[in-house]
């Protein structure tokens, strides 16, 4: 596509996302902790029809074969209305490892199911909190003639509550294995912890789970690399979600500052609040500028080191900015902001869950330091 075509096509994509978002009611998110309906499969199918689940899936598999910069537009727009569906978890994180799979039959099946919305996959890679190391896996895959028997525990699986199956990373004598474990497979049990925003973090227990050869998605270094790449891409798109969240939260807050009257004046006329709002705005704009640069870098498919450094830049900045902006949004609303009825509370909660997912600010700054600073400093 030419540059002009690209801009036009992204403008159209942004418009269609905005149209869709206008129809979304925050009531559903407000009740999420009770309803636990974080993935409405009817809505999910609509999103599939709009092509959004396949933005990053190659055209050969029914997807749109577009770029992360396109996916970011969808994720940002839907995050503005706090859509709880596991878009990034399925259509970026899981989609990437599936797309990189070496088992063509399984890859086809899973990608087509993902794109059509009929099959919701979740990637279960994480075992401990606070780590971005995708290679160091305790779960064990023991080979037998027909495939592997798997034991282990995977934590913080997003999108797990409505998933039709899990892609599980496990270590074996032949290196890392990425295995497809359909829901309700014998020996696979899933438990949940509620997240701050009412969504669920899954803990997947695998006890002597049998995975046939057909369900081995990828192996060895290729498997490890694909998870690392998926994590970086998903971190970038989660950053796009964070920009959507901070953007809407600041909008709501600026509106409030312009209309709420105290001491006979709109509170937005008080200089202390003005300057604070300006500082939030600067963080929002910084986040946007950084994300933009990072997406450009990632879409050029650089080496792993460059890719990880870029993803960490986006996640660190967008996480910290979103937490700051949403927290200050509560504060600037005064008592109203502290009630369940006020929308800004929903934004702070989503910001908190996205902040922690796939590495928070500290985790990403630490990783960035490791490759970008300390390697050079040791010379």
């Amino acid at each position, binding site marked *: 596509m030419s540059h002009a075509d690209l801009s036009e096509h992204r403008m159209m994509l942004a418009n269609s996302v905005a149209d869709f978002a206008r129809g979304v009611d925050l009531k559903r998110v407000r009740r999420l*902790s009770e309803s636990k309906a974080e993935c409405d499969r009817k809505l999910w199918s609509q999103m599939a029809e709009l092509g959004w689940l396949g933005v990053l899936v190659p055209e050969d598999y029914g997807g749109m074969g577009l770029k992360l910069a396109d996916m970011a537009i969808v994720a940002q727009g839907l995050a503005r209305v706090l859509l709880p569906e596991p878009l990034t978890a399925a259509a970026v994180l899981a989609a990437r490892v599936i797309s990189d799979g070496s088992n063509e039959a399984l890859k086809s099946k899973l990608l087509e199911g993902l794109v059509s919305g009929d099959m919701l996959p979740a990637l279960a890679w*994480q075992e401990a*909190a*606070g780590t971005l190391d995708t290679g160091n896996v305790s779960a064990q895959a023991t080979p037998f003639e027909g495939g592997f028997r798997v034991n282990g525990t995977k*934590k*913080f699986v997003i999108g797990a509550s409505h998933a039709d199956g899990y892609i599980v990373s496990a270590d074996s004598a032949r290196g890392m294995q990425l295995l497809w474990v359909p829901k309700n497979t014998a020996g696979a049990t899933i438990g949940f*912890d*509620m*997240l*701050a925003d*009412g969504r669920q*973090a899954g803990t997947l227990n695998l006890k002597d789970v049998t995975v046939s050869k057909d369900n081995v998605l990828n192996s060895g270094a290729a498997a490890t690399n694909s998870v690392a790449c998926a994590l970086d891409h998903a971190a970038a798109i989660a950053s796009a979600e964070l920009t959507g969240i901070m953007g809407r939260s600041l909008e709501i807050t600026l509106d409030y500052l312009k209309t709420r*009257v*105290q*001491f*006979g004046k709109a509170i937005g006329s*008080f200089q*202390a*609040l003005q300057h604070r709002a300006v500082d939030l705005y600067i963080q929002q704009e910084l986040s946007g500028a950084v994300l933009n640069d990072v997406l450009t870098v990632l879409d050029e498919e650089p080496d792993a080191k460059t890719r990880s450094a870029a993803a960490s830049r986006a996640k660190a900045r967008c996480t910290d900015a979103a*937490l700051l902006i949403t*927290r200050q949004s*509560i*504060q600037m609303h*005064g*008592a109203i*902001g*502290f*009630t*369940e*009825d*006020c929308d800004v*509370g929903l934004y*702070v909660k989503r910001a*908190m*869950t996205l*902040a*922690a*997912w796939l590495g*928070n*600010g*500290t*985790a990403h700054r*630490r990783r960035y330091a490791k490759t970008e600073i300390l390697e050079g400093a040791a010379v």
Partner: protein
Amino acid sequence: MSATAQQIDYNAMSDEDFRKQAREFFENEYPDELRFMPRRLSWEESKPWWLTLSKKGWLAPNWPVANGGMGLDPAKLIIYWEETERAGIGRMPDQGVTMVGPTLIRFGNDEQRAKYLPKILSGDNVWCQGYSEPNAGSDLASLRTEAVLEGDHYVINGSKIWTSMAHNATNIYVLVRTDKAVKQQRGISFLLVDMKTPGITLRTIKNIAGGEEFCQVFFDNVRTHKDNLVGKPNEGWTIAKGLLTYERLNIGSPRRPLQAFEQLDPLARELGLFNDQGFVDRYTQLKMDLNDLGSLYQRYVDKVRNGEALGPDISMLKVFAMDTYQRLAELLLEAGAEYGALADEITLGGKKIDLMTPFYTSRPGTIYGGSNEIQRNILSKYVLQLPN
């Protein structure tokens, strides 16, 4: 109130003896399951302890003995508070003891004291506070709920909001506008109202964490007898202002952030963070900030102990306390990494750790009792005397 309690002159005891007695009493009698709660207690949870205190005559440490209090001098009062905090005793719906009692003792008349004080001590009356209004939050003096004297009764119309625990309360004290012709701070009166009076309705407001903490209280031609006016008509602002100063001392105590800090230790130990100099630096900064807050708090406690009046500079205590509390709550979530996004308590190394509650409990303190912005305005105007 118990007759025996009145006969003990606590002020005649040595500090050590009094502290020992308080410590033993709080350690032995307070329900263990309610110690160091990261939130306020409901009336239902509080009632047994309320009655235990009342029976011993220890419910109202700073009321005069004649009114059923302990009549503690400032030095003993501080010891009482210190031991309360040490034992992790929760905050009860204590507006009757902390606010209404002192107000009636200082500004009320004998009839009001006789009518209301014993029922506070007995737990028959539970009070709530009607100050804020939907359009007068930080700008309290602009309140619009009005009361018009018709015969022997004030007729109240309007509404109050952010009334904590109103759904548990039997009585409410309200600031109402009784003269619209004069400047904002004037023309406000302080009235006592029975919550069962016809015309009062409640709307519960859930807080951000989903708890039923506040109410909006609506007054629709609510009649309260003019005997329920505290102080003189149109002088309610003076009464309210004095009470707020002491509320700022209470909210500026390092106690609540220290409770949150208790969560940070096991978390750091379980995640191995004490080997991480970056974490240790942030932990140390907060720990030292809390100790320094303790030094500042102690300065005001000493003033109370010496019988000195607290001035507007007390606002700085609240600003720094709330700022430190929030930074602490934020470090908890950050250090918890993925655990820091979980809504409920987590279990690590066999210990229950509550990462999320401090985040929620640390926030309203910068809004209620005058937001941190308002506190800074007060300090700027009355302490630094910067121009308008």
